[in-house]
C-alpha cells in the first residue's frame, strides 16, 4: 500500500552519479550457450532480448510506454536490416510493480542461455535489486529511467536515460532570464532524486544564475492535501516556486497553487507534463527541463513521433523515446562487434557509449566508462494549450 505509492514515486529515480567506489560482486558463474558462445560464426538468425518492465501495477504507464518505444525500435532494426539479416526477437516480462518479480524475471532470463541481453526495469528499487544479479550472472542489462545511485556501479549494468539531475541545471538559464532571485520548493522528501533536486541541485544552480533557494517544504509520498505545504512555501512570496513530486501529487500541488492565487513562476520536472495538460489554461507558464519532448525539432524526434503516432495514436512520451534509444544502443553494440554474445554486447555497449550517439533524446554522451547516458536536455513550457520548447 504505502510501498505502492512510493514505488510509483521511484519512476523519477534519476540521480547524480557519485563515485562510491563499491566493488562489483561479480562472481564467475557465467553460463555457456548460444548467447554466451563464440563469435566465430558471426550473427545468429535471431537474437533474443528480454524486456523486464512494469506492464501492470503502480507504474504501468512507464513500462507500457517504454515497451512501445522498444517495439518501434525493433521494427525499424528488423525491417531496415540493420543487423545484416539477423533479427531481434524482443519479449516482455511484467514486473507488476514488484521488486521481487523483477529480480525473478531477470534471474530467469539470465539463466536462459539463448537470451543475449536484458532491457531492465524503470523503477529504481527494482533496478537496484536487479543490478547485482546482472553482475553475478554476467548478462548485460540496459535500464531506462532508474536513476538511483548504485545501479550502474555494478559492471554489466547500463543506463540509457540521462539522470534527471544531470540536465536539470538547464532551468537556471530560464530562471535567470525571468529575473528570479528567490526560489522556494515543495518536494517529496522520500524520493531520493527529488530531494536531491531541491536540496543540492537547485541551490548550486542558483549560485551561477543569481537566485537563492529559501523555504523548502518537505512532503511525503503519502501526502494528499497540498494546501498546507503550498501555503507555507509561498508565504514569503518567492519569485519562483519549484513543484517536485509525483503522479497525482503534482496535480494536487498545482491545484493548490492555483487556489492560493500565487502569481510567480512555477518550475517543475518532466512528470508535470500530464498534469498540466489536464489542468489546461490555468496551468499556463509552468516550465521544466526535459530529456525529450515530441515537439522538439530534430529529425530523430520527428521520425520517432511520426512512427509512434502511426502505431499507437497520440504523441510520443519520454518513456517511449528512452525505450527506443535503449534498444538502439544494444543494436549498435551488436553491429559494432558483429557478434551477439553477452560478452560482445557488453563490450559493444561500452564502445558505442564511449563514442556517443544521437538518439531521440538528442546527442547522448556516456559517463562511467560508457555505461551511463548524459544529454544537455531542453527547457519546455506549457503555454496553456501545448508544450513549447524554450531552450534547445
Amino acid at each position, binding site marked *: *500500500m*504505502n*510501498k*505502492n505509492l*512510493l*514505488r510509483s514515486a*521511484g519512476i523519477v529515480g534519476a*540521480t547524480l552519479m557519485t563515485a*562510491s567506489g*563499491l*566493488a562489483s*560482486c561479480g562472481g564467475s558463474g557465467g553460463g555457456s550457450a548460444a548467447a554466451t558462445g563464440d563469435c566465430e560464426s558471426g550473427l545468429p538468425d535471431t537474437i533474443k532480448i528480454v524486456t523486464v518492465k512494469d*506492464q*501492470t*501495477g503502480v507504474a504501468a504507464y512507464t513500462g507500457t510506454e517504454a515497451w512501445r518505444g522498444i517495439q518501434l525500435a525493433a521494427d525499424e532494426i528488423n525491417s531496415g536490416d540493420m543487423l545484416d539479416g539477423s533479427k531481434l526477437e524482443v519479449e516482455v*516480462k*511484467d514486473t*507488476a510493480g*514488484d*521488486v*521481487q*518479480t523483477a*529480480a*525473478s524475471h531477470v*534471474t*530467469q532470463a*539470465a*539463466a*536462459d542461455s539463448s537470451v543475449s541481453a536484458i532491457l531492465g526495469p524503470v523503477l*529504481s*528499487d527494482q533496478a*537496484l*535489486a536487479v543490478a*547485482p*544479479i546482472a553482475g553475478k550472472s554476467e548478462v548485460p542489462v540496459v535500464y531506462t529511467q532508474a536513476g*538511483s*545511485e*548504485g545501479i550502474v*556501479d555494478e559492471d554489466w549494468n547500463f543506463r540509457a536515460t540521462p539522470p534527471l539531475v544531470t540536465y536539470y541545471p538547464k532551468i537556471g538559464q530560464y530562471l535567470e532570464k525571468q529575473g528570479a532571485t528567490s526560489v522556494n520548493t515543495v518536494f517529496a*522528501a*522520500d*524520493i*531520493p532524486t527529488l*530531494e536531491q533536486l531541491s536540496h543540492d541541485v537547485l541551490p548550486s544552480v542558483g549560485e551561477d544564475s543569481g537566485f537563492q533557494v529559501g523555504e523548502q517544504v518537505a512532503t511525503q509520498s503519502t501526502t494528499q492535501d497540498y494546501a498546507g505545504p503550498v501555503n507555507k512555501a509561498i508565504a514569503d512570496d518567492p519569485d519562483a516556486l519549484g513543484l517536485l513530486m509525483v503522479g497525482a501529487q503534482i496535480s494536487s500541488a498545482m491545484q493548490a497553487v492555483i487556489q492560493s492565487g500565487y502569481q510567480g513562476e512555477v518550475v517543475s520536472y518532466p512528470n508535470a507534463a500530464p498534469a498540466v495538460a489536464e489542468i489546461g489554461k490555468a496551468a499556463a507558464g509552468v516550465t521544466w527541463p526535459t530529456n525529450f519532448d515530441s515537439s522538439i525539432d530534430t529529425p530523430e524526434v520527428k521520425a520517432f513521433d511520426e512512427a509512434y503516432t502511426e502505431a499507437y495514436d497520440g504523441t510520443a512520451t519520454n518513456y517511449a523515446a528512452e525505450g527506443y534509444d535503449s534498444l538502439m544502443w544494444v543494436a549498435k553494440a551488436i553491429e559494432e562487434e558483429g557478434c551477439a554474445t553477452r560478452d560482445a554486447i557488453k563490450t559493444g555497449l561500452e564502445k558505442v557509449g564511449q563514442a556517443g550517439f544521437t538518439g531521440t533524446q538528442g546527442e547522448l554522451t556516456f559517463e562511467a566508462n560508457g555505461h551511463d547516458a548524459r544529454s544537455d536536455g531542453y527547457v519546455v513550457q506549457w503555454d496553456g494549450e501545448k508544450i513549447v520548447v524554450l531552450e534547445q
Partner: protein
Amino acid sequence: MSAWYDAHLILVQATFISFLVALSIQFPMRMGVFSFAGVANYALGAYTAAIVVVRSDEIVSPVVSVGAGVLVAVVVSLILALIVRRLRGLYLAMATISVSLIVQVIAFNGGELTGGASGMFGVISDLTIGSVIVVCVVAAGILTWTERGTLGRRIDAVRDDPELAVSMGINVNRYRLVAFVGSGVFGSLAGGLEVLLRSTISPVNVGFSLVVTALTIIIVGGYRSWVGAAIGAVIVTWLPFYLQAMERYQQVIYGLFVVVAAIFVPGGLLGIADQARRRLVRRQLEHEDQEAAAEQDAGGAAVVDAVGASRKEEAR
C-alpha cells in the same frame, strides 16, 4: 534441476524469507497478541545488518551482522512489550502498526546512517541460501516444540481464554512478553537475511504492505501452526508467478483468490487438513461406540445415552 533452480533462485529465497516474516506476526498471534511489530523488527534487523556490513572495513560474518540485528530487535521488542502491556486486540494492532510506520520514517530521516530515502546498497556478504534454510528449519523445530504437549496447550489457553489461563496457574504476562520477543527474533532474522541476500534495503521495503503480505500468508495457510505459515509462504510467493499467464488480470485474480480463501477456508489450508483428520477420528470413535454398545450390558447403555444426548446437542 539446477537450471530450474538457477532460474527460480529469487522465488526460492523469497519463499523462505516470507516464511520468517509471516512467523514474526503469526507467533504472537498464536499467543493472542495481535501485534504487527514484526514489520518494525524486520526493518530493525535489515538496517542493523546493513549498517554493520557497510560500515565495517573487513568482511563481516553473517552471524555477526544478522545477530546484531536480532539483538537490537529483541531489546526494542522487550521495551515495546512493557509499554503496550495494557493494549489488546485491534488497539494493540494499531499501536504496533504505528511503531512500524515510525521506524520507517526514522529510516527515511536517518541521513548518512540509513542512507535516507535511497536506502543502502552494496551490502555484500557470503550468505548462502543454505544458511537461510538452516535458520528456517531450526525455527520450525523450535516452533514444533511450542505447539505440542503441555506448552502447546498452555499457549492455546493463553490465546483463547487468558482469564481461564491465569486461573489455571499460567503466567499470561510472561507469555505475552515471549510473544513480543519471538516476533523480534523472527522479524529481524527475516530482515537481516533478506538484506544480505539482496544487497539493498530502502525505506520502501519496510512499509505497511509487508503487514498485508504477512497477514495474507497466515490467513491463507492457517494461523495455528508454523506449517500454516509455510504453506501460505509458498502460495503467496508462487501464485502471482503462475498467475502471470493471466497477464493484466493477475492482480484481479489474486484478489479473488484471497477473498474466496477468507470466506470458505476460515482456518486456512491447514485448517482443512485439521478438520479432515478430526472427522476421521470421530468416525472411528463412533464405530467403537457402536461396538461397545453391542457388546456391553446396562453400563454400556448409559454411555450410548450420553452419546445420543450429545448428538442432539450438536444437531441444534
